[in-house]
């Protein structure tokens, strides 16, 4: 049901763009106004979300500690899993962001013949996630050719590398294909594994369908229906130089692609995709485990009036003595 609702939402978005451009001829709405609005929502939304997180106090020192803590000199510390210094934290964060290290240690629980518990590792989610994020990044960077003039040389090299199979013309770009396959895998994983399906919400399916349809529309446009790239680039360069134009004769598939991307951008600040900022702000990930070396002050501690034992004894010394209770100071 969640999946079907999300699918309907994405199909509605596609139809809006299709009808808006094809029937109602609102080219400048879909080609200029919507992308600008989406970009503004994206930037302002992400900033305000991060500022909101930044205002939440962290009362305790709560880093995840997955290995041996720094201890006596002859006990080997697990520096990356249980960092005690800022550089250790940066190292762990980099590995987490770039290689998804914590997914690598994902374990699956199974009962083997007889009631025997076994923990095995499942690497498929890690592999699928890695393929998805990296290919998305490469596709995104390659798209910069539409937004830069002259195009920096490193983008050309990336494109040559990405198309090294030299299949067909226009040449097949691997990252686009990997992206499509990886999103498909991540979706199938949600629907085919019962326990994952059980915890999947519409908010999980919607971004998957959205990205799937963005990749599909891009691939359809590049390899099948074709689009006038020179015209597209005039539009995109116009957008980034605040001098927007709508060239004639760009196919409607491009406007659908652009509208879906705009929807994704505008959706990001309100969705789970905010994990791109959230991972850096997670106390469990961005704090060093130095709780035995440095005192973590709870930022919302207000001064508490402490009544020490000494003061207590001063108040009640005579009474305690007469009751025969031992006192520290006579």
């Amino acid at each position: 049901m969640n999946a079907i609702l999300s699918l309907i939402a994405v199909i509605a978005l596609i139809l809006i763009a299709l009808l808006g451009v094809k029937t109602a001829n609102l080219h400048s709405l879909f080609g200029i106004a919507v992308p600008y609005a989406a970009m503004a929502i994206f930037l302002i939304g992400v900033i305000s979300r991060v500022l909101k997180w930044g205002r939440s106090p962290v009362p305790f020192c709560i880093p995840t500690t997955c290995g041996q803590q720094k201890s006596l000199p002859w006990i080997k510390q697990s520096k990356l899993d249980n960092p005690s210094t800022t550089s250790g934290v940066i190292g762990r964060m980099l590995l987490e962001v770039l290689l998804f290290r914590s997914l690598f240690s994902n374990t699956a629980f199974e009962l083997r013949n007889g009631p025997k518990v076994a923990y095995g590792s499942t690497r498929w989610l890690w592999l699928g996630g890695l393929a998805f994020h990296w290919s998305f990044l490469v596709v995104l960077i390659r798209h910069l050719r539409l937004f830069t003039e002259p195009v920096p040389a490193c983008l050309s090299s990336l494109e040559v590398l990405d198309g090294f199979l030299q299949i067909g013309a226009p040449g097949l770009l691997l990252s686009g294909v990997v992206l499509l396959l990886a999103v498909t895998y991540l979706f199938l994983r949600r629907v085919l594994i019962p326990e994952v399906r059980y915890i999947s919400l519409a908010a999980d399916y919607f971004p998957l369908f959205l990205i799937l349809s963005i990749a599909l529309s891009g691939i359809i446009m590049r390899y099948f229906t074709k689009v006038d790239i020179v015209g597209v680039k005039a539009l995109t360069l116009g957008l980034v130089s605040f001098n927007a134009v709508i060239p004639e004769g760009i196919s409607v598939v491009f406007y659908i692609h652009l509208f879906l991307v705009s929807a994704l951008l505008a959706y990001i600040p309100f969705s789970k995709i905010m994990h791109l900022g959230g991972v850096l702000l997670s106390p469990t990930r961005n704090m060093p485990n130095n709780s035995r070396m440095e005192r973590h002050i709870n930022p919302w501690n207000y001064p508490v009036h402490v009544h020490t034992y000494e003061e207590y004894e001063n108040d009640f010394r005579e009474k305690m003595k007469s009751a025969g209770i031992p006192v520290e100071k006579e």
Partner: protein
Amino acid sequence: MYKGRKIITGLILFVGLAAIPFFYNSGKTSVKPEPNIDTPAIQQLAEKQCVEPREFMKANHMQLLNDWRDSAVRDGSRIYVNSQGKQFTISLQNTCMHCHSNKAEFCDKCHTYANVKPYCWNCHIAPKENKT
């Protein structure tokens, strides 16, 4: 705000990253490339038309070349009949580049703009004017 300096620095980096394309193009007026069709072969044409209509060629010429290559190299058929029933000999060097003998002023104009570098010229020979 806790850890305010680090968070603000991060946010400035984020906005800066998102703004790269805007800075890169600020103050530049981009000119759409105008491929030049002023070549001796095209001047002699009665009707200045490509293999297929211009709108089709603009977006589909790479597909057409790919189909030409398959049809010549795999099927051995070297005649192409276009949508108006006109016949062309299938050849990159002798048909396309006969008319478009100004590769640098024509093909490369668009390709530099769109950042594509067809590897065809590793083997196929580009028209002479380009050699100097």
